[in-house]
């Protein structure tokens, strides 16, 4: 039995569908991330699970119980907001205790559970502080403790780290994930940051304009996007329109806007045309033409290079072909002369060429 199950859920605002016929199930202990551009309906979906938004159609089940018409306070969900939403007039302790009070848990049990929850987020010493006296990261941890202490069926987080700076965000990711694994709590996480989604999730749900585009593990979503939209949204990619020009036993040769590529034959090609994706970090940059097994090598000219610290990003114009984005780890000590205008060779492995299913 899934912890959360949405069936054919629909939410319209006026004539626009914020969420359209959405099916989604979260298994016990699973960490599922809703990912998509702004306005695609992530928050709306989460808020329907929490009970703040009523769907126009479809059903929502939590813990095997149909909760579609049930108000938020009887849904047993733990909710964490981007702005923390700590009660400013209550101490950390009172904040965490609130949910237990509303449930009529008796005082002695309340105390031990609040202390346990604060211990989990490493804030045991801060229980008498007021929210305004805490840093952003500490506030978010209180919010987490407050949501967890009621032992909800599912933990819902809407861009919980959006207000934190980058370093803290990276740290909180790890902490949240560890905690989630330890408590084995089903979690629905909303973000529009792909790094966050890739690094934390068991499964990612990529959404666009109110519908689900693809559901899968981080690896599958990144390596094998099922549409141009997903490929484009999940990090940088080279996307070419391609058509097959030759075929051998184990490879297809594709003409990608003038660039000849080989792709593994295991990939289906419906009809003669396709869109192919090559991730820029999988392309090798060579100073001289070197033919390697399982790769194609083409010549080109560096148009621009952008220094990004740990990586360097190049735009290479292929002779009689497209401009290709290449990202290299910044490890070679200047072995490639990166001056715009200098000639280079690109080595593209066959298995880096991915044909997006139509």
């Amino acid at each position, binding site marked *: 039995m899934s912890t959360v199950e949405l069936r054919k859920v629909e939410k319209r605002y006026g004539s626009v569908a914020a969420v359209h016929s959405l099916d989604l199930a979260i298994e016990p202990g699973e960490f599922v991330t809703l990912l998509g551009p702004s306005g695609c309906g992530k928050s709306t979906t989460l808020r329907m699970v929490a009970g703040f938004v009523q769907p126009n159609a479809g059903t929502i089940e939590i813990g095997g119980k149909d909760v579609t018409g049930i108000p938020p306070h009887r849904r047993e969900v733990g909710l964490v907001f981007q702005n923390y*939403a700590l009660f*400013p007039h209550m101490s950390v302790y009172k904040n965490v205790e*609130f949910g237990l009070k509303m449930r009529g848990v008796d005082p002695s049990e309340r105390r031990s559970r609040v202390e346990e929850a604060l211990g989990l987020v490493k804030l045991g010493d801060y229980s008498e502080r007021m929210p305004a006296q805490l840093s952003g990261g500490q506030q978010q941890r209180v919010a987490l403790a407050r949501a967890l202490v*009621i032992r909800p069926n599912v933990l819902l987080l809407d861009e919980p780290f959006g207000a934190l700076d980058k370093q803290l965000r990276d740290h909180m990711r790890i902490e949240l994930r560890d905690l989630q694994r330890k408590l084995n709590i089903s979690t629905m996480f909303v973000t529009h940051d792909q790094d966050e989604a890739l690094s934390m999730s068991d499964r990612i749900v990529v959404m666009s304009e109110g519908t689900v585009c693809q559901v899968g593990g981080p690896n599958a979503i990144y390596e094998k996007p099922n549409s141009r939209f997903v490929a484009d949204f999940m990090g940088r990619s080279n996307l070419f329109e391609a058509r097959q020009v030759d075929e051998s036993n184990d490879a297809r040769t594709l003409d990608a806007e003038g660039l000849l590529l080989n792709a593994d034959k295991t990939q289906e090609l419906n009809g003669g045309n396709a869109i192919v994706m090559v991730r820029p970090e999988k392309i090798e940059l060579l100073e001289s033409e070197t033919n390697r097994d399982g790769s194609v090598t083409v010549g080109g000219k560096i148009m621009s290079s952008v220094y990004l610290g740990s990586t360097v990003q190049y735009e290479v114009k292929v002779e009689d072909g497209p401009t290709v984005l290449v990202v290299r780890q910044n490890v070679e000590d200047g072995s490639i002369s990166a001056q715009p205008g200098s000639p280079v060779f690109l080595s593209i492995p066959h298995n880096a060429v991915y044909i997006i299913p139509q």
Partner: protein
Amino acid sequence: MREGYGSPWPHRALVVFSLLVIFFLVAPLAILVIQSFTNESYLSFPPPSFGFRWYREVFTSSDWRDAVGLSVLIAILVTPLSLILGTLAAFGLDRGPMRGRQSLYAVMISPMVLPHIVLGLGIFRIALQLNIEDTLLAFVPAHLTITVPFVVISVGASLQTFNVTLEEAAMSLGASRWRAVWHITLPVIRPGLIAGAIFSFIISFDEFIITFFLATYEQTLPLEMFSTLMFQVKPSIAAISTLTLAVTAALTAMLMFRGQILGGGRIVK
């Protein structure tokens, strides 16, 4: 303080002028307070001798006592009612659809823009029709009409800065809408509620013209002061004025120094 903006001389002139204006605002009241402690049977400044003679007179006179009693009674009835009506309306405006919010807000504060003389005339008319003039049934609703807009404004301003996700957080933690409002929203917007209550009390306590129309035999404190003043200027009027001033000043100070005027004191930060 802005540096490099204005040389010291114009600035000094500005300070002096402003201090004179403040002197103009404060001095008459200070003089009134001092004169109220005279021991003579007439008013003069400075009084030749000081004492509480006129305060005793005020406290023992049944006219003054009755007037104060009625004014306090009305204000005590008006304040909670005003707070309830105004807060309900402010919540309605805050939570209702965007569309029409502006016009309904305008309706809720409309009695403010009407001169009280016209409002008083109208209310007097309907009170005569219903035969309730000169009773609490007329005084209380009449005062509410001018106090409710202030509550709508002060509570409305607090609600505008209130983050609704707090209420949602409470609901996700198991509080019903009503309990979330009670435990979270109302405590957080308390400054707005206090401001609304203080405004209501003071406005009702000081109200003159509408009550002037409605009252014939009953006398509120402002009416009693007015008729005394028309008759003769005695030190007792200075004493009662000082008492009124003390009450309103205390309430105003509470309002100001908790920084609740002008939108939670953000302007003075």
